[in-house]
């Protein structure tokens, strides 16, 4: 079944066109990787998909689970199962991780007409999930991302994904700032969620992460559109040859 369908998407930020005719279809259970040079518009794509203010769709359309998402508020997209692990996670002073996660999970449950979670059970679950990602109880008491190292932030993104169990997770440079061991831990966390139905859209610069989370498709994204698609061997080729060979059209 088709989960995400992007058709001839054009989008701009502050009146400047960044996405210029992008097509992409992601089916249930598939893992797609997008690789592309700095400034190509990869993060912009993630914001357009999630509905961030200021990122305007000027042409084409996006369907998620068969619904056009243009008029869906950010939180509704999230509650429908769209997740974004941010390239630069945001600090929220004064809000502990546990409180934040509890609000998120309960908002999700409310959306699906489920009763609120029992706090005690919830905390037990989060602690278990955290442990697998190397996040201990003391860290869960800290305020969201405040004073976290780059790697800790990425682990916290992975924890949120584990707790929220989205149907489509966009991982925007989920590997940046992670040491080799942490990358394995995060990759394991992501892989644990794969059940044949959940899908992933992985934005990365390096093939390394893709060794741990194997993609079904690799897309090369440049100047606002996908210029080449292939299987995971494309990522290896890209690592050897660099973007210029593809972007200039002679790859």
């Amino acid at each position, binding site marked *: 079944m088709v989960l995400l369908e992007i058709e001839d998407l054009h989008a701009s930020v502050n009146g400047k066109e960044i996405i210029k005719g992008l097509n992409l279809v992601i089916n249930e259970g598939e893992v797609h990787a997008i690789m592309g040079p700095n400034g190509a518009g990869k993060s912009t794509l993630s914001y357009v998909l999630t509905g961030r203010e200021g990122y305007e769709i000027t042409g084409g359309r996006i369907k998620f689970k068969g619904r056009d998402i243009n008029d869906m508020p*950010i939180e509704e997209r999230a509650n429908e199962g769209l*997740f974004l692990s941010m390239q630069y*996670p945001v600090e*929220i002073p004064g*809000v502990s991780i546990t409180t934040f996660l509890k*609000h*998120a999970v309960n*908002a999700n449950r409310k*959306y699906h007409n489920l009763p609120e979670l029992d706090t005690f059970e919830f905390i037990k679950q989060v602690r278990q999930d955290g442990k697998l990602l190397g996040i201990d109880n003391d860290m869960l008491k800290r305020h969201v991302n405040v004073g976290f190292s780059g790697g800790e932030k990425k682990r916290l993104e992975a924890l949120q994904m584990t707790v929220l169990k989205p149907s489509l997770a966009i991982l925007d440079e989920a590997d940046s700032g992670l040491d080799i061991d942490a990358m394995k831990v995060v990759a394991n966390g992501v892989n644990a969620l794969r059940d044949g139905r959940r899908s992933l859209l992985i934005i990365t610069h390096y093939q390394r992460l893709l060794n741990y989370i194997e993609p079904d498709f690799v897309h090369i994204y440049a100047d606002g559109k996908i210029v080449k698609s292939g299987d995971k061997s494309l990522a290896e080729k890209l690592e050897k040859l660099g973007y210029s060979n593809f972007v200039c059209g002679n790859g």
Partner: protein
Amino acid sequence: MAGLFDRFAVVKGAAYFKLLASRAREIFDSRGIPTAKTEEWKYTKPRGLDVDNYEKSAVQFMYDFEEIPIDAYRLEFINGRLNQNFDMPEEIRVESIFMAPEELFGHLADINKNPFVALNTANIEEGVFIRITSTLKKPLLITYKTSVNNTNLFSNIRNLILVEEGVSSEIVEYFTYAGNEKSEYFNNIVNEICIKDNARLSHYKIQEEAFKANHIAYNAALVGYKSYYKSLCVQKGANLARNETEVRLADENAATDVDAAYIMNGWATIDTTTWIEHLYPRTYSNQLVKGVVGGQAKGVFQGRISIPRDMVGVEGNQLHKALLLSDMAEVDVKPELEIYADDVKCSHGAATGVLDERQLFYMRIRGISEEEAKQMLIDAYLDDVLSKIDNNALYSWVRDRIK
């Protein structure tokens, strides 16, 4: 208790109160309600207050009032009158304000300095003199209830609180209403507070008056040797509200924390005015005031710190921060540092900001609605102040009330 609270005509010391009241009346009549030309009142403009157009008493309607659910000794005023059915432990002596010692009454809150103190003093009919003689096991909660229908009630309540030497105590004041939410009643409150040596008073106040009401309060505290006064005021009600706190640190090692939080919408003006006087060397003060202002409302903070000559080793810090939720919201801040001594540590700061789009986005992509995300950020913002409430039950209750 019967007869104790009769009006002052029959109470001892009546001559002194009468004299002070008539002097206060003269002062108020000659100066009137302050206008925008009065420096202390240039941001908070009480011009709509026509004190002759208020009623001094009102038919009392029996509404259900909000009560703070904490374990406490309780006193209550209903429509400006003390409810004489109360039960106090031995360590809290409650008497009529007209039994207050003459050497204290009227000496802490000066009728010459503040027009509303003069107005209160000219009109006192009710109030309590509270003497705390040994350390309290529970806080004393004073609830001021206004239950009015169509009457514009005007209450001038006057209290004097005396904390004896070596005593630790906690007082919570709560202003609430029931009935006609559009009532334009006016509460004009003066508290004189004297904390003797080696003593402590934590004074919490929660102001939730009706949205068209007026609330003006003057708290004047005198803090003795090695004593500590903590004042924490949370304001969220009234159309015009001012909570003014004057603290005199009157002996060495006297210290105070004067903190406040306010949250408002609509057209309200909420004012926090403080004046800390470091009258002895090695006295310490800290102030943290945070506000959240929406709609077309206006938050005002005026903070004055006085450190006269030779007051060495004094520390005085002050910080005001506000979050503006709309383009029409306004905040006016006036710090006044009067420092004439060397060798003091003094700081003040002010910052105004808006909700951070990045934070809201981050919360919403996790499924949290925009409204809830804003509330969470507001809660977090005010928690710097609210978390200073040492009474856990009160803290949780207040946190829920700011929603």
